[in-house]
């Protein structure tokens, strides 16, 4: 009985914490998806709870591609890459937290005007489904410059 119990325990716990190993990286893009439907994962698995978290990347080593302190358009592109789903929603809606934060990164104090300009240019900014963060960044810069949208 002891054996059976130990086996159960080990099996269960292994599945519980199996949910989140994988390569390190920044944020969501680096979460390795396991089969969410698997029962053990559901019973015990807390995919990204600190109990099993692995989203570690040392502050001093090779983190530049996740960081916001890059120079020039770099920081905006990093932001856009990580927030692109939400940013696309906000631009289509002309309003939202992600849009407000990004407009502050472009040095705008008020995101009302920039919201309307970007909304009107949605298809210019997102010409296809898989456009890169750098392209999005430069399109937004251009629109802000030409329409003087940034107050």
């Amino acid at each position, binding site marked *: 009985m002891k054996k059976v119990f130990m086996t159960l325990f080990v099996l269960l716990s292994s599945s519980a914490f199996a949910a989140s190993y994988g390569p390190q990286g920044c944020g969501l893009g680096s979460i390795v998806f396991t089969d969410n439907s698997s029962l053990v994962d559901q019973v015990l698995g807390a995919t990204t709870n600190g109990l099993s978290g692995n989203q570690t990347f040392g502050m001093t080593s090779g983190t530049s591609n996740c960081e916001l302190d890059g120079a020039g358009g770099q920081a905006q592109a990093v932001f856009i890459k990580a927030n692109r789903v939400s940013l696309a929603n906000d631009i289509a809606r*002309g309003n939202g937290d992600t849009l407000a934060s990004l407009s502050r990164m472009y040095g705008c104090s008020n995101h009302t005007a920039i919201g309307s300009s970007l909304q009107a240019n949605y298809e210019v900014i997102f010409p296809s489904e898989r456009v890169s963060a750098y392209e999005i960044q430069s399109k937004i810069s251009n629109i802000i410059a030409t329409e003087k949208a940034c107050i």
Partner: protein
Amino acid sequence: MIRGFFLFIFLFHAIVQISHASQEKALAKALKLELYKDKQWHNLLHYRPTLLGGVKSQADGQAFFNDPAGSSDPQAELIATIRAFYQSPVHKNINRHPSCRFPARLLFFKRKLGTDFNPQELNCEGFFKFRKKMAAASLSLVFSSYYLNRPASAFGHTLLRFNKNKANEKTRAYELLDYSVNYSATITTNNALLYAIGGFAGWYNGEYAAIPYFYKIREYNDYESRDLWSYELNLTAPEIEIIIAHVWEMSSTYFKYFYFTENCSYHMLALLDVARPAWNLQERMAYLIIPVDTLHVVAKTPGLVKSISFRPSQRRKLKARLATLNKTETHSFLKFIENFETDKVDHQLSDQSKIKILDAGIDYLDFVYAKEVLSEKTQQLGWKRKILIARSKIPKKSIDLNIQLPKNEFPHLGHYTRRIGLGAGRTKQLQEFYSFQYRFALHDFLDPPNGQNPDARMEMGDFRFRYSPNKLSKKFVLEEFAFVDVVSLSPLQRLFSDMSWRAYFGAKSLNDTSCNECLAPLAQLGSGFSQRFSFIHYYLFLTSDFALSKRLGHRGMRLGLGPELAILVSPRNDFNFKIFADYKVFTLSRVKKLYTYGTEWRWQYIKNNSFNILYAKKNHDWEWSSAFYYYF
């Protein structure tokens, strides 16, 4: 020329002498003040008392110490650290000088020794850049609430956010630009088994990491649809300064990560303890830490919490969007989301209505297809693109969702996580008995629901013992050990339906006719549906059952299947009851049919103290019992 040379040597010596004198003066003062006994010094070095009466640092990297014996000798470490700060910078890379590597210890001495401590000021480029990026007006302890249909996620996760702005409604939007400090384990294996054992045994290294907070918003708020609760802390600017400096210091070391003891929450409190040792947060925690416990400790510390706010999950936002739709709009919305075809949105409707429908559609797609959207599956990207283009063509802004702070869901209001129970009862077969139980975590449906996931039961490590003075049975028995007992409900409702299910793994004393008082390993899995009508919940499952015991029959096991029903009634936070019934047919065992039905009532008469009454009727037996529960 020669005179010049001698002058140089003289001056050099003089400077070294002055510097040396200053160092000795600083050392003498530090020793006189017994700074090596200072609580803050101990917190900075992460010293913890050992059983032998000494101390040992929890930091496991030797680079964290300036003295070879530093990990267990606070005084030697203090002396070596002061000397290290006075070293003239020889490295080409100034960032490797102790003053640049241990800025919090430097601050500590500056504050404690004043003008007597004056080592050379260095231009620590790396640290200064870090300090600038982390610069904060205030700090918040952030807690991620449960992830639906993953009951174990109710343990939560905590991190610290360094708020660029003072937290308030207006600055909420800019939280995305804040930095956060997170503590987690670095996993070095792909083997699930090693992973699990290592997590409990502390094989993996835990590290602090500073990352932009938006990664956490995307991960928890959006992808996992969990509310993020922020407890803004009352810290002074100098306190924030030393925390930032200490986070930097931590990059030179690592800790062993233990899932249930030295985990993310434990190490977040360590950072706060560095700022103000008097709070003594870490030591006030129990040995086994569940992240939500940290909120209890922080909330109980007078004056520590300044304000509480939350960032609603994707699911909560979607619900708020759906609530704005009127009947016609809802009708149009439901047609539209069948295949996400934007031309199904009624053209007759006003722009305002179309905006509401499309906005709800955007959130619905993101919620239901969170995984597909994130991993950029072609079909969902295509749908999404069409909706967003249609939305952008209506040149009006969407208004901000007004989601009220759900005050009775504050996670710190929940009952404590561990529970013990003492009780007595009577069964037909055993006559009277006394019971003792201990539950490591976390919640069942009759515990006070405030601050908990209302749709889940998550119990881990539940031990139940029974003592019966009766001659017929064993005196003191382990009645049950539930390693995990989980019920996850997803009440039927339009657009949010998911499977409801339950799982049990443990061992139980099967007090039925097939096996009197044998402790048998038991597994149960069930699924079905549930529904909620205001404060009444019910679920109906088909549940399978598998138990092992020689006394069940000559095969030594039983396999069973049957329906199970529970009606849960929660009219108030402090009063809850349920009515339950289940029936199972078995194969392989002697006994072929078993039924149970009964009711259980629980009343919380003082916070974290409850009284429980249970009545259950079984095949040839009945039981009634009562117990006092204490949560801690």
